[in-house]
């Protein structure tokens, strides 16, 4: 059965770029470990991970909760410093967070006291851009995410999907070299999610930035990524790489996407089960497994 391919949007490559955008740079983790302090002592979140992402590559980090994917993203952003190892950008170690490594968060994190336009202009203001230029640039960005009409609204007046689009516009404001996205669509409904996945793909094809996208949704990862990095948990570490060499743009309901997704999901299944079992006191039974006796039912047996 042939997959129904959506017509390739030829306009994307034909349309001239409105403004030359800085191409992505490479970013890498060099034998990075990270632990943080909890009430039970130091907890190792990442254990000796090495990862290299090429300039202009779209990489998804996929794994169950607790696999350290957000921690890796925060390390790449410079928000966290590794306890061991180095984080490099274009070969050089980074020195903290900055506009070259822009980040989109799960809850948009727009400033509630500013309008959408002022939010998008904020990083430009930090960079010292003049008022007129800021206006122009924010208008361009808002048009790119189709939110120009709502420029003077405050974030509370926007829906979740709109806020995320605003956050993406804000992240792109300073023309970053690396775009980091931390489960940006996790809090949205399925339809909005699909639409925004398409938007991100469109923006990526137009600007070719390096994108590191964290998600626990395997299908989303397969739809968007050139390469998927699978993460294991407890301790967080990189399991393996999967290259996705499907042509772009990809359709959400493409059969090949589904096939890849099932394959990848099988790989991380054991990790997911590990978490589920830990969180359910060993009484959790994986669906489809043989029925196991509930250990609590056997108290007193064999005395």
């Amino acid at each position, binding site marked *: 059965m042939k997959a129904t391919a959506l017509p390739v949007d030829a306009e994307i490559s034909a349309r001239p770029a409105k403004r030359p955008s800085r191409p992505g740079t490479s970013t890498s983790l060099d034998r990075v470990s990270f632990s943080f302090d909890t009430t039970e002592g130091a907890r190792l979140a990442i254990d000796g991970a090495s990862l290299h992402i090429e300039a202009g590559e779209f990489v998804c980090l996929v794994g169950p909760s607790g696999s350290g994917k957000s921690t890796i993203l925060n390390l790449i952003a*410079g928000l966290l410093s590794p306890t061991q190892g180095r984080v490099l950008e274009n070969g050089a170690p980074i020195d903290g*967070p900055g*506009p070259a490594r822009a980040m989109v968060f799960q809850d948009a994190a727009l400033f*509630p*006291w500013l309008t959408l336009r002022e939010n998008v202009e*904020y990083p430009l203001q930090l960079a010292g851009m003049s008022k007129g230029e800021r206006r122009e640039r924010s208008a361009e960005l808002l048009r790119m995410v189709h939110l120009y009409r709502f420029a003077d609204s405050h974030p509370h007046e926007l829906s979740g999907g709109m806020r995320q689009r605003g956050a993406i516009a804000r992240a792109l404001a300073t023309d970053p070299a690396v775009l980091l996205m931390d489960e940006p669509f996790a809090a949205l409904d399925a339809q909005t999610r699909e639409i925004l996945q398409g938007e991100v793909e469109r923006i990526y094809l137009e600007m070719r930035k390096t994108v590191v996208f964290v998600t626990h949704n395997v299908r989303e990862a397969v739809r968007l990524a050139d390469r998927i990095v699978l993460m294991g948990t407890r301790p967080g570490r990189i399991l393996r790489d999967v290259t996705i060499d499907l042509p772009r743009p990809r359709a959400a309901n493409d059969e090949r996407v589904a096939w890849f997704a099932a394959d990848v999901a099988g790989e991380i299944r054991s990790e997911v089960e590990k978490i589920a079992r830990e969180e359910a006191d060993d009484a959790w039974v994986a669906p489809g497994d043989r029925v196991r006796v509930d250990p609590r039912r056997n108290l007193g047996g064999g005395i």
Partner: protein
Amino acid sequence: MALKDGTLGRAVVTSVLRLLLGYGVSLFFGVLLGVALARSAKTKAAVGPLILGMSSVPSICWLPLAILWFGLSEWAIQTVIVLGALLPIAVATEGAVKHVPPQLVRAARTMGARGPRLLFGVVIPAAFPGILSGAKLGWTFALRSLMAGELLFVSGGLGQLLETGRDIGDTALVVAIIVTIIALGRASEWLLFGRLDREVGRRWGTEAA
């Protein structure tokens, strides 16, 4: 009746000027102190318990000490007002700054905000609704401290006029002053706090649906 025209007006002016001065000082230093308490563990350790202890003292209890130190002067009244209003403002500001969602600060840092720009451009605006609550509370405390001070130690202003009214048995005067105080409260609400409340509601979207 003739007493009220002129006397009442002068008393209002005296009281309001004292209030504005004392409240202004309290607000400025209170917010500063609150931010310092929230951001610096050292400050909190050094000054925190002292602040907590002092805020349990009703501000009027400072009046005897203030009079002993500064005599029957404006300084005494201002001391009482500031001690009454500064501490609640500081405590509320500290809470507001502590409760700024860390995600907002992270976002600002990834955009390149650091140091003072981060503090004044992001943290304090984010904490503004809480700071405003503290400011309103501080205003109430300042007014109470002022009235108590003026009632107890004669020095002009509405409090003294109240005492005079009681002394000469002029109920109408006393009631008139109370009405004036109510009017002052409404005026401050209308001119200042009400406006700020509405602005916060407009931006943060916290108006009742």
